């Protein structure tokens, strides 16, 4: 019995030592993918919203509170993307470390936002974001700022591993630079191709790869499109010979499917996040997959 107790104590002590790793929680799977490429096995990493979920709407689960309660660092997309659920979770988990200061990182710091609304904002516009379009991670160029923010903060909180993080940052940037070149070469022949999207989610992505978003199927998020708008979209697709409609994986496909059928465009469901489809296993694969699907359909 005594020996058993000794073993148990030994195991517990050992595991508590190995748990001296920095505990990081990200709100989305994309941020987790980027953080994991910097922190690798030196951080203890968790994320909340799965890639196939709409990050605007996440139903709280007890496991989220547990993750947040033990966290040393919370990394969020920011720009009010998570405003519907994260503030309550942070309040309820009673972990002062991640409320503000060093334990909270808004990954959008230093990024140029697009579609910042001007003038007075009203609810009449549907679900809008007062600080600009929050889907900035879909421009891989912005990945550089995100990864810089994450790497800086990790080094600040865990100076012992600062060198390790800096080395991984360099490696990430080198890989991203190479990938960016390939991606842009692939998309070069399709510059200024006109497309239709479901919401404004794809703004950054399209800006980077030279795609022109002509219109959205649901221009006011959360409010069903009107008949004249739907008709307008169908006519635009026919007139401009638009080939693809891009939809995020978490929306009902009935409306876009019906528009695709009536207009002859191809409906393309593309993930907005790592984990949105099984093929998008990390931040680089996300773009590999999306561009592959796009090219297949644009070349036809």
């Amino acid at each position, binding site marked *: 019995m005594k020996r058993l107790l000794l073993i148990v104590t030994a195991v517990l002590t050992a595991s508590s030592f190995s748990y001296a790793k920095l505990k990081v929680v990200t709100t989305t799977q994309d941020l987790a993918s980027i953080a994991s490429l910097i922190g690798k096995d030196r951080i203890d990493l968790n994320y909340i919203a799965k890639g*196939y979920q709409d990050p605007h709407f996440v*139903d709280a689960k007890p496991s989220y509170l547990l993750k947040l309660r033990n966290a040393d660092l919370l990394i969020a997309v920011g720009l009010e993307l998570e405003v519907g659920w994260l503030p309550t979770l942070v309040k309820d988990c009673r972990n002062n470390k991640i409320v503000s200061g060093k334990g909270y990182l808004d990954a959008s710091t230093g990024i140029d936002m697009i579609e910042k609304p001007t003038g007075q904002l009203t609810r009449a516009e549907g679900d809008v974001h007062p600080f600009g379009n929050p889907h900035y991670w879909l421009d891989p160029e912005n990945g550089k700022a995100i990864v810089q923010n994450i790497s800086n903060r990790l080094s600040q909180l865990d100076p012992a591993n600062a060198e390790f993080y800096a080395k991984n940052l360099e490696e990430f940037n080198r890989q991203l630079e190479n990938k960016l070149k390939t991606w842009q070469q692939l998309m070069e022949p399709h510059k200024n191709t006109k497309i239709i999207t479901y919401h404004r989610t794809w703004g950054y992505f399209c800006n980077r790869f030279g795609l022109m978003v002509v219109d959205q199927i649901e221009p006011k998020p959360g*409010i*069903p499109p009107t008949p004249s708008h739907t008709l307008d979209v*169908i006519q635009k697709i*026919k007139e401009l010979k638009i080939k693809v409609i891009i939809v995020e994986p978490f929306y*009902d496909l*009935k409306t876009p499917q*019906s528009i695709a059928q*009536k207009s002859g465009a191809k409906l393309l469901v593309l993930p907005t996040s790592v984990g949105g489809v099984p093929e998008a296993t990390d931040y680089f694969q996300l773009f590999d997959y999306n561009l592959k699907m796009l090219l297949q359909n644009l070349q036809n």
Partner: protein
Amino acid sequence: MDAISFLAAPFVAGLVLAGILAYLGLHVVERGVIFVDLAMAQVAALGATVGILFGLDFHSPATYWWSLGFTLLAAFVVTGTRSKKSHIPQEAFIGIVYIVSAALAILIMSKAPQGSEHLKDMLVGNILTVDWPEVVKTGLLYAVIGLLHWVFRKKLMLISLNPEQAQAERLNLRLWDLFFYISFGFVVTSAVDIAGVFLVFSYLVIPSVCAMLFAEKTSSRLTLGWILGTLVSVVGVAMSYLIDLPTGASIVVTFGVCLLICVAIKRLFFAKD
């Protein structure tokens, strides 16, 4: 594609829904089970979420069979809860069916790769996206159900209007109730798939309530219900196009206005005391 040909399919879908739902609404209002369609629609949604859990698409035929299967199960449950001896009103059981199946759907959705967006879509729907094959298929299904109800109209009306007399005439109440709710389940499952729960509820309840303000006889109530249902569909779809508003919500609001006008007319011109 011009506006008329674009709006034709949703408009005809509205007429098909008005045709069957205004009739079923008479039964539902008489029986005092107003929310049975909400409960059944929710169970249908639950069936669809189970389909999604098995990797099916939300609007695929296989998902429809899941929905239908669950709805038929609900038909048995609702039939079983009607009892004149019990002190518990049937609406209580209907409410429980609604709440539990809604909560179950949320639990299942939290494990499925597509989030709760579908549950919202189920409520709001988008009647604009209905296509001709869907309208024809639904129209045929409703014609068959309508025909069956016409053949058995005496028995079906009697069990809804006067269950005591039906029992005195030795009708098997349970069996005919089951027949009613199963056919109701068939109608609601496909109606909700096309138009969403809000719109289906309006088509079901508001024409019959309006008609009951003015008419006593079932046949005149039905005629009036159909006329109002058609009128509201025309005005609602036209308004949504002209003022540029979401179609489903426009029809629901038009129904509300229609009821207000009916109540006003009743007060002004038909006040007996």
